[in-house]
């Protein structure tokens, strides 16, 4: 009984013991807050990296014969769409026709005749079916942008984003223009406005000879802009109606890839990849699965959005691992606080330890007395730290604004991010891990002075004055 009674009394009566609690409290609350903010930023980074990417992208390698049969893949889109949509995990799918070329801004028209000119922008043309695309990707949300500045301009009719702007009057003497959607960043970079005409240029393949030697220019009208979370994508992507793009290119392919939305990406992605591969190969619209994962000649063809951003996501995970190591060091410092306070206490309480031995306390009992002190300090510090850390993570924005007001400096510059608040994610597994680690570190730190107390010679201890 004495170990609990005395540990509580020592903690209550010796304010210096609260330094150990305080160090654990500060470490735990700071770790939880840092973890929440870092997780928030990492999650935003993931969203940012994802951009318009759908859950899955199926991109058949049409020019590669099936290794087992020597047959070429079917190029029609319908068998692909039917098979994809038949999968129970798939909620939507949309075909895309992808090609590459250049955008010739209005002030640079005619620059193709001057190959030394740097006035062109390399872009990817993505032909889409808007309604299908809306269902499978975040495009509709990205078109619903607030028109914050001159260059941001949502299409007049979101249900038909390629419709002419209302104030545009087509020239009856000219061929009706095709319309495009481009990233707000790209429009801003080149000073383009909704309703403005510009020229696209590309080279195409001769369907007869397969030679990549046909140049093609087309005048188009900017019908609107979008803003995804991935700025690089916004700078490089131009959307057109899929059929209009096919018509311009004279392509015999109906599509290049199909983007797929799953009911639950986290749950279904890996299974769906395997099953879709199997089902699509059976329909001869995709190559069958490789015999080994290390096959270097194997066309991947079916990728999750994470597969597409693997290296960048790996970098994020690496950051998270580094963060974990740094957080571990903070806990070690807190553990050192507990160690220092208890070591000091054992030195100060040598005589008490001797008295306890004389009164019949066992070394095990004395060990648990000092471990109880370390454990109680850690428990109180951890509980308060968790409450404070979670509270701070939830109310980080008002807190940051208050700090900014008090100190007259801008702590979080909202203008440099895509989001207007400090992102936080409260990860309970991480919080539990921090709490358990804090208590474990404190107990390990307390064990060293506690062992010293337990094995103190009572005669030496009683002699201590």
């Amino acid at each position: 009984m004495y170990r609990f009674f005395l540990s509580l009394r020592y903690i209550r009566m010796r304010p210096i013991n609260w330094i150990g609690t305080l160090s654990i409290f500060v470490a735990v609350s700071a770790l939880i807050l840092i973890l929440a903010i870092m997780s928030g930023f990492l999650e935003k980074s993931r969203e940012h990296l994802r951009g318009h990417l759908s859950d899955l992208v199926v991109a058949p390698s049409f020019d590669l014969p099936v290794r087992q049969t020597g047959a070429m893949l079917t190029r029609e889109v319908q068998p692909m769409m039917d098979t994809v949509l038949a999968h129970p995990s798939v909620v939507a799918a949309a075909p895309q026709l992808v090609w590459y070329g250049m955008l010739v801004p209005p002030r640079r028209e005619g620059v193709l005749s001057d190959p030394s000119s740097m006035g062109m922008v390399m872009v990817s043309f993505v032909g889409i079916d808007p309604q299908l695309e809306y269902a499978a990707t975040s495009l509709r949300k990205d078109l619903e942008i607030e028109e914050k500045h001159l260059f941001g301009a949502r299409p007049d009719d979101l249900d038909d984003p390629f419709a002419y702007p209302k104030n545009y009057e087509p020239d009856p003497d000219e061929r009706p223009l095709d319309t495009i959607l481009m990233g707000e960043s790209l429009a801003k970079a080149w000073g383009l406005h909704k309703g403005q005409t510009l020229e696209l240029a590309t080279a195409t393949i001769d369907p007869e000879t397969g030679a990549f030697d046909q140049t093609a220019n087309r005048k188009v009208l900017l019908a609107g802009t979008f803003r995804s979370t991935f700025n690089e994508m916004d700078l490089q992507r131009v959307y057109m109606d899929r059929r209009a793009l096919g018509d311009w290119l004279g392509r015999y392919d109906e599509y290049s890839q199909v983007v797929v939305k799953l009911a639950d990406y986290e749950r279904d992605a890996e299974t769906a990849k395997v099953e879709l591969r199997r089902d699509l190969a059976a329909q001869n619209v995709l190559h069958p699965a490789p015999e080994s994962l290390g096959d270097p000649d194997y066309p991947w063809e079916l990728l999750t959005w994470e597969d597409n951003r693997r290296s960048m996501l790996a970098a994020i995970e690496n950051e998270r691992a580094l963060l974990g190591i740094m957080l571990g060091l903070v806990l070690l410092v807190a553990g050192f606080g507990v160690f220092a306070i208890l070591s000091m206490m054992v030195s100060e309480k040598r005589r008490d330890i001797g008295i306890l031995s004389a009164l019949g306390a066992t070394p095990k009992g004395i060990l648990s007395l000092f471990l109880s002190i370390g454990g109680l300090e850690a428990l109180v510090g951890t509980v308060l730290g968790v409450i404070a850390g979670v509270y701070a993570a939830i109310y980080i924005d008002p807190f940051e604004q208050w700090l900014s007001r008090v100190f007259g400096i801008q702590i979080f510059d909202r203008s440099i991010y895509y989001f207007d608040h400090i992102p936080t994610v409260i990860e309970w597994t991480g919080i539990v891990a921090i709490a358990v680690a804090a208590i474990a570190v404190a107990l390990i730190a307390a064990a060293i002075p506690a062992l010293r107390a337990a094995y103190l010679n009572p005669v030496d201890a009683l002699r201590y004055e």
Partner: protein
Amino acid sequence: MSDSSPLIQARGIQRSYPVGDRTLEILHGVDLDLFPGERLCLMGASGTGKTTLLNILGLLDRPTQGQVHVVGRNGWALSTAERARLRNAHIGYVFQFYHLFAELTALENAMLPAMIQHGPLGYLGKRKVYKERALELLHRFGLSARLKHRPGKLSGGEQQRVAIARSLLLDPPIMIADEPTGNLDQATGEKVLELLFEEQERRGLGLLLVTHDENLGTRCDRVLRMVDGLIQGEERHTREAPSEAEA
């Protein structure tokens, strides 16, 4: 003094400490018995090994050679935990410097041996009994108004009375007192001593008392004189009542 088997029986006790390359011999083979109800006084000049012998007899220090039996059990053949339990249940200590816990009240200090003897559940089940026992001791020792006072608010005599109450809480058969009045003025020391002797008498304790006070010898059953780590003389007395001046 009783003729029954001794509460403490020490035979051939030697104690030495390594000091650099040498070995410092403190005790050279001490034999000692303490019987139930006996008041045994250990006297000697400073540095003769009295406190070392007391620590060994109280199972706090292991002898280099020799054996100590406490209530018939070989104390240094027991495990550390068994030895601690033996100490808790059978030996009450009174120290020169009181050795109370500064963080505890007088009542809590007095109840500490019971907290050590029992786990939380066992203690909570008997707390009332121990509290009544501690209160009874403290009331008898004139500390009724000091129950909630911490040692820092108590005089030296009061602190020593709390220490005696603590040593008696579990009703041990043995009491070891190491110069219990050594830190008190004469009048206060005499009061404390009276109280100690009264309780020894009342409970039939075996009391082992270390003192420098020659006058005390006449109030003990036996006086052992230590010289250079050996017991060189033994005097037997018939107890005297304290002189009027001492009282």
